[in-house]
């Protein structure tokens, strides 16, 4: 049964997360504190936003490697629009997000109109968008934003980091869309069998176009939050974030071949990675050791859930 096996992976992952949390809180008494956990939420927001959109994209059997570059491009444009063009900062940020969203739309166009496989299309735009960020910025940073802007990335609302509200809202909305709406159904249908979806009158192209656009939007929004969090723009922002997001999505049980995956899984995967990064660091493990362990967890988690599934169905 499809949904049962899916549930099994997420349950397993959630259990793993609980075990990891328990073990880590024994390692360091500073780990399992409200302030630390909230703070970790702040740090994982950008990856989280991108991973949510990426879950949809991967569930259709696609992939978007250009998100890191879109993040960088948006960051740069926020600064350039504000400082060089002279737009008011909110307008500049919205305009930059619009461009980032458009970059995602272009990905979608290349993929749907020219039927270029998503991996190749976004591999090309990965280079292109990063290049644009570099060219437009001339490698200059833009700094010195007004203080109110930092509320987004460094401030708190009701005691919780501002961007965590955004991430939580995005996660809830996205999981409702994926699980309960016809858009979500269309996503799974495309991921399982694109041809049959088309033959069933589903708008495959429009859906894909919308998803890559949404992925661009998520990356762009993450870009602005990132700028607000680190108070500066640089054209190399977000380099390699695509792999982090994909890792969270895949760890969360979304099939890389499409057709299955949930936002809950992605969020658990994301939390697991962040908890490992933070907890191990608090427990005195160095960054390089943490990377190794996350790699091993990724392989072992998928291996374990594969084994579960097989023993269940045979």
């Amino acid at each position, binding site marked *: 049964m499809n949904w049962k096996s899916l549930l099994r992976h997420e349950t397993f992952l959630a259990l793993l997360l609980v075990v990891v949390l328990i073990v880590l809180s024994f390692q*360091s008494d*500073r*780990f399992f504190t409200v302030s*630390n956990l909230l*703070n970790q939420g702040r*740090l994982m927001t*950008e990856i989280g936003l991108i991973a949510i959109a990426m879950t949809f994209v991967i569930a259709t059997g696609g992939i978007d490697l250009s998100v890191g570059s879109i993040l960088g491009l948006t960051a740069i444009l926020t600064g350039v629009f504000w400082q060089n063009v002279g737009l008011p900062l909110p307008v500049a940020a919205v305009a930059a997000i619009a461009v980032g969203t458009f970059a995602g739309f272009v990905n979608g166009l290349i993929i749907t109109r020219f039927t270029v496989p998503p991996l190749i299309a976004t591999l090309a735009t990965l280079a292109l968008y990063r290049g644009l960020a*570099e*060219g437009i910025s*001339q*490698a*200059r*940073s833009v*700094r010195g934003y007004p203080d109110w802007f*930092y509320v987004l990335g*460094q401030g708190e609302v009701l005691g919780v980091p501002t961007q965590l509200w955004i991430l939580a809202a995005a996660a809830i909305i996205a999981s409702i869309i994926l699980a309960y709406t016809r858009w979500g159904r269309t996503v799974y249908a495309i991921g399982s069998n694109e041809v049959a979806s088309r033959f069933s009158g589903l708008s495959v192209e429009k859906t894909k176009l919308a998803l890559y656009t949404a992925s661009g939007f998520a990356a762009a929004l993450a870009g602005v939050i*990132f700028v607000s*969090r*680190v*108070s*500066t723009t*640089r*054209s*190399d*922002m977000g*380099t*390699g*974030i695509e792999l982090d997001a994909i890792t969270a999505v895949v760890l969360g049980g979304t099939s890389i071949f499409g057709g299955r995956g949930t936002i809950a899984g992605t969020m658990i995967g994301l939390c697991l990675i962040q908890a490992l*990064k*933070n907890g191990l*660091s*608090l427990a*005195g493990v*160095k*960054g*390089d050791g943490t*990377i190794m362990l996350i790699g091993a967890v990724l392989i072992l988690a998928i291996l374990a859930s594969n084994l579960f599934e097989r023993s269940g169905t045979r």
Partner: protein
Amino acid sequence: MRNRVLSALLALSFSTSLSHAQSAAWTGGDDLPTNPLACDATPATAAAKPYDGGSPTNAPDRKGKTLKVVDVPKLVGIGYFNATSKGIADAAKEIGTIDAKTDGPSKANIDDQITLIDNYITSGVDGILFAANDPVAIAPVLKKALAAGINVVGYDANSTPDARQWFVNQAEFNGIAKAMVDSMAKETGEDGAFAIVTSTFTTPNQARWIAEMAAYQAKCHPKMKWLETVEAQEDNILSFNQTNTLLNKYGDELKGVFGMTSVATPAAADAVTQAKKCGKVAVVGLATPNAMKPYVAADCVKSVVLWNPVDLGYAAAHVLRAVADGTLAPGATSVKAGKLGDLSVINGSEILLGAPTVFSKDNINNFDF
């Protein structure tokens, strides 16, 4: 179809390059104000400036107590930061009351570095030593550390001053620029043409050096000709290929290559060596001596500019100790740094390591880092 696309692209690239050629500044520099030194050896007269660093909130009295210190360089896994890390370890051993460890991102990535520092703040260290990947981006997390009562000292790459207490300046940007350009002028003559191989244009230190070099060259060696700057990441094969391409493009016109990173400089030297242009094309650059020994020994590279990164780490650890003990307080004019003796305070809250060292065939074998 295809040809049209290509020619359109090429036309585009020409036009962008033309529009760029009109600006006089070197590619790769930043747009902050420059302050070139005098052409002769006159030392810069430093204007006295009040302390502009930050201070930790409610820091406990750490005098004489063992400090738990974490050193977060830009990235781990390169020779330069291995050397600073070694210096910190040496100092810790010598002082005895510092428990230091180095942990950094595996790529020079601002976000990873911020996350790491954040984790260490939570885990409760007494002191943080850092080399910033971005001066502004790192500021919020450092301020958070100060607010948590942690002593924060920078080295190698600064943050905004109010985000840390002190910064150990290995050599001022204009000092490095002078040493580099003077060395190049000596080797290629006053009218030589040269090119630059850097890591990425977004790396702040490199951008600052390039900007200062441009200003100094314009002031003191006006006839030298800057050809272009190329990016080569932190990738030595790419640096090698880029240098080769420059050699091929300019032929005999190219008289010198600046390597702006400890990765680019040996690769550039290797390119010149393998092109059998030793002596015809000068390589001047920032690099660690160990990586440069073969080229210096073969007389292919005459001068390598670098401060001693082991000393830099060593000084940083001493400064941190002094800050924690309260012996280095705002307004001080110098600080004792073990075997390095007294180091002077400049620019309000910076501690100067000294003039950069120019390594040559005579002294390079005295260094091992």
